[in-house]
């Protein structure tokens, strides 16, 4: 691979933040004035630079190519006889496109230099350090969010995309709850008596366990191990245990697993 031919400039795309940055660098390197930008000369320098990048197999982002096309067009304007073709373009926005580029570059240069000025200012965490505030407890203090609306979105996004949403804290020892466990829970809670389905389910802390237990109740109804009774529309549902908790639960397991698989 060939090294850059001209030692005074190195081809480094990553040091440029876009085509305007590169263009400004070239303008300054060539020592030309922005106000009277020699478009042809700058276009050549720019295209030359892109060629070097290509020679080095460096990826060239699309926006650099768009600028290259613009520069080629602007250069062609200089080569063509002035009036006939150009007329429309100039009339449209009332400005020579070359001047427009120079103006755009000048505006970019202002912010670019402002960035340099920012860079030289004392910078917390680099040049100067501050104290964390002392912690003072205070009741009835007004609250502030500490983030803006976008921060709120970030938090929401984090929640949506969290790899594995942690199960609720209290579920630590219930994650492993099986249908067998659920059946045993129901039968031992009832202990052969009658109980309310809602109080049975509300004793369980998570929705997952409640669903599992509800499925277990339905399955045991089918097997005749428990009975269900509802005396009025939307009234409470009573569950009656008809077998002991030490019933052979292997019977239920196969079927329920098959049903929920």
């Amino acid at each position, binding site marked *: 691979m060939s090294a850059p031919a001209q030692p005074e400039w190195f081809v480094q795309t990553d040091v440029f933040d876009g085509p305007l940055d590169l263009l400004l660098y070239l303008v300054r390197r060539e020592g030309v004035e922005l106000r009277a930008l020699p478009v042809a000369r700058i276009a050549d320098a720019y295209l030359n630079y892109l060629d070097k990048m290509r020679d080095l197999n460096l990826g060239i982002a699309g926006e650099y190519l768009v600028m290259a096309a613009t520069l080629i067009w602007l250069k062609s304007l200089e080569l063509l006889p002035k009036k006939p073709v150009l007329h429309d373009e100039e009339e449209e926005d009332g400005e020579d496109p070359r001047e427009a580029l120079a103006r755009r570059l000048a505006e970019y240069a202002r912010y670019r230099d402002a960035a340099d000025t920012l860079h030289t200012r004392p910078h917390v965490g680099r040049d100067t350090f501050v104290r964390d505030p002392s912690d003072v407890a205070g009741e009835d203090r007004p*609250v502030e969010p500490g983030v*803006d609306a*976008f921060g*709120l*979105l970030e*938090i929401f996004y984090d*929640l949506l995309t969290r790899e594995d949403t942690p199960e609720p804290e209290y579920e630590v020892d219930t994650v492993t709850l099986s249908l067998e466990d659920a059946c045993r829970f129901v039968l031992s809670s009832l202990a052969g008596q009658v109980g309310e389905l809602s109080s049975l389910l509300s004793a369980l802390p998570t*929705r997952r366990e409640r669903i599992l237990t509800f499925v277990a109740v339905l399955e045991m109804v089918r097997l005749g191990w428990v009975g269900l009774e509802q005396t009025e529309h939307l009234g409470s549902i009573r569950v009656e245990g008809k077998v002991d908790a030490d019933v052979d639960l292997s019977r239920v397991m196969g079927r329920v697993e098959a049903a929920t698989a």
Partner: protein
Amino acid sequence: MSDNLLPFPGNEPSDGLCAALEALLFASGGPVSSRNLAEALDVEHADVLGGLAALSRGYEDRGIELLEIAGGWQLRTRPEHAGAILKLMGQRPSRLSRAALEVLSVVAYKQPVTRSEVEQLRGVDSGGVMRTLLGRGLLRVAGRKAEPGRPLMYGTTRAFLEMFALSDLRDLPTLREREELEEDV
């Protein structure tokens, strides 16, 4: 280090070691051992001890003092200013907790939403946080959901919009806008 141990002397150009020690102690916040100070400044440990003593004397009649705590040295405010500090900091708003922000974000984007829907997304019990937010006027009850049990649904309030400088819920940035910001890097 100069022989003159006056911490911030008038006629000396500066006692550089005392100034440096002060900067280090100020920035670190917590107690720092004299050995660590010596290492950071690349000076003799004995010089650091002398410097700390001088610095400490210099803090007489000042708002802060230098104390040896937990095997290290720490700058602290003098106790007599505690009242004013409490008064100053007591007016300062406290920050919403991460938990509160999480609940707010879920309610803001999914409202109207039930408590169990919030908990599903967060993966933790959120009742306490939601009560606090209701109390602060950032959440409100927005009806009941048409499902068994008819659970309460929650939404955000006008105070919520004000807190986040939004004129309208539609002003919330969207997930798509977030994605668009992420696309190019």
